[in-house]
């Protein structure tokens, strides 16, 4: 193992090409992972911010905010389910917002709420909103009065909150009446009555799992009838994935990441197989003087791990610089957990790739050191 490290130190040129190739792949992996996380976090902020265990949709809504309607009698049934401690309504309207001093419309998600999400204060007065930080990039400032939708409903921004967006659109957190006003004025085809919300968020007392609580709620509302009050309840994780395109987006990116990791395995396997082939006489001599296959292969594996680690460090620097200079509209989020997991999987791929050399190392005959290989 010490010998393998010395070779890396004294003959770095032999490993340069493999390291650079893996560095390109590592930066690609981190960039793709950053985009995946950026898109996911940017899409699901409004859900993730909710201090809720279960999200309750109308049973015919196909778990869509925009299609879902929850009427008061359903809400009352949900409230009485064993283990439920709090129930709050949510409503959502996607509109263009005219920002003072800007010619372009900002994409906005107007969200009416009753129970404050994490980091969001109590619902503001009618006609006011807490705006997500994302809207700052659109030129929005505290005190601005935004004109929402084609009906140009005015809403004044009274402060900013962080990481609460919906499908990459800047959230405007308002009290339910303001949401209904925006919805009904801009979507007359989908009006909502004063006591109706789109989705309920439910907090439990912790005695049941989120899945059990969701099942209890659906069981309790089933008797109200399909389309007449029956519900489809989801855990928070399920609600995040039920957002349009989120599941497909995750699957697509994960497949690309998987293929890229497979390419890492292939490159490490090919590179170290070639290196091992070149080292056959040396390994033959080392086996002759008492090196075991395990010792020789451990050296190959250590070199693969060091090369992968160096490549990852280089890739991480490239992505860090890229993230710092990327335009604000690029949804790139470099998450610490993702960086660590990418490194771990990259190293595992390198180890896996190096295993391709194991068979060859095993087969090296020490007798060939003196030309007597059988």
């Amino acid at each position, binding site marked *: 193992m010490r010998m393998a490290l010395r070779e890396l130190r004294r003959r770095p040129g032999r490993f340069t090409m493999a390291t650079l190739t893996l560095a390109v792949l590592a930066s690609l992996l981190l960039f793709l992972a950053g985009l995946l996380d950026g898109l996911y976090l940017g899409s699901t902020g409004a859900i993730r911010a909710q201090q809720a265990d279960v999200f309750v949709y109308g049973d015919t809504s196909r778990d869509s905010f925009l299609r879902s309607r929850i009427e008061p009698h359903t809400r009352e049934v949900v409230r009485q389910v064993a283990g439920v401690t709090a129930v709050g309504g949510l409503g959502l309207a996607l509109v263009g917002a005219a920002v003072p001093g800007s010619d372009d419309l900002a994409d906005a998600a107007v969200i009416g709420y009753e129970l404050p999400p994490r980091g969001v204060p109590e619902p503001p007065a009618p006609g006011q909103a807490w705006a997500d930080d994302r809207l700052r990039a659109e030129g929005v400032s505290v005190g601005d009065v935004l004109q929402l939708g084609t009906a140009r409903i005015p809403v004044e921004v009274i402060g900013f909150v962080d990481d609460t967006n919906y499908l990459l659109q800047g959230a405007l957190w308002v009290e339910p009446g303001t949401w209904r006003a925006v919805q009904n004025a801009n979507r007359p085809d989908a009006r909502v009555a004063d006591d109706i919300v789109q989705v309920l968020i439910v907090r439990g007392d912790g005695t049941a799992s989120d899945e059990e609580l969701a099942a209890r709620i659906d069981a309790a509302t089933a008797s109200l009838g399909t389309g007449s009050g029956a519900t489809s309840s989801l855990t928070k994780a399920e609600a995040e994935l039920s957002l349009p395109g989120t599941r497909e987006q995750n699957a697509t990116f994960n497949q690309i990441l998987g293929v890229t990791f497979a390419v890492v395995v292939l490159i490490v396997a090919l590179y170290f197989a070639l290196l091992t082939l070149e080292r056959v006489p040396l390994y033959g001599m080392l086996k002759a003087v008492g090196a075991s296959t395990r010792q020789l292969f451990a050296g190959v594996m250590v070199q693969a791990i060091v090369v992968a680690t160096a490549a990852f460090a280089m890739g991480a620097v490239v992505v860090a610089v890229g993230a710092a200079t990327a335009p604000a509209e690029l949804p790139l989020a470099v998450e610490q957990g993702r960086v660590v997991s990418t490194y771990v999987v990259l190293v595992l791929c390198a180890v896996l790739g190096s295993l391709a050399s194991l068979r060859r190392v095993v087969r090296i005959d020490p*007798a060939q*050191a003196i030309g007597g290989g059988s």
Partner: protein
Amino acid sequence: MTTPLELRDVTKVYGSGDTAVTALAHATLSVAAEEMVALVGPSGSGKTTLLSIAGGLLHATSGEVRVGGRDISAATPRQLTDLRRDTVGFVFQAVNLVPFLTARENLLLVDELRGRRSKASRQRADQLLGELGLAYRTGNLPGQLSGGERQRVAIARALMNEPRLVLFDEPTSALDTQLGEQVMELIKAEVKGRGIAAVIITHDERMTHYADRTVHIVDGVLNAT
């Protein structure tokens, strides 16, 4: 005291049936401590096979092989690896040293393979290199050494594990006559001074007079002279 190397009626056959080739036929050879045996023969005569069997690199097809008194005829590959690491020293003709390790590190490698690395190892490596006239070359890579110096480092490495038996595969073939004679003098001094047994394959009849005895091998059959 046990004999460092004993071969009794050793035969090695490669292949089987019609394609069988007998590389070594009923070879019997004993090499005592402080004894230096030159093994001479034409190409393909079985010299390398004999050396490989003696060093635990190959299994004999039949016969008994004892190294340091221990019968290795039926040893497992792992036991043979341990034997080579702990009991036998090798000096090869071609690839001898690890090119990216210094002269000292090439010697320390022997102890590293045994899971040992201590100040004593380093002292022993430096002492061996000093005895072989390489004290000023301990930190040099093989590529920075002359052919004779490289061969001396290889000899020092072969002595690093304090072996009972050292096997030399044409140690002077890449050297000119003068350097070859110096190396043979050195080998002889080490064999006698350390009480080890040595078998030296050589094509060069001029070098055989350094040996205590010469064994000729033709078509796998030994003839002592």
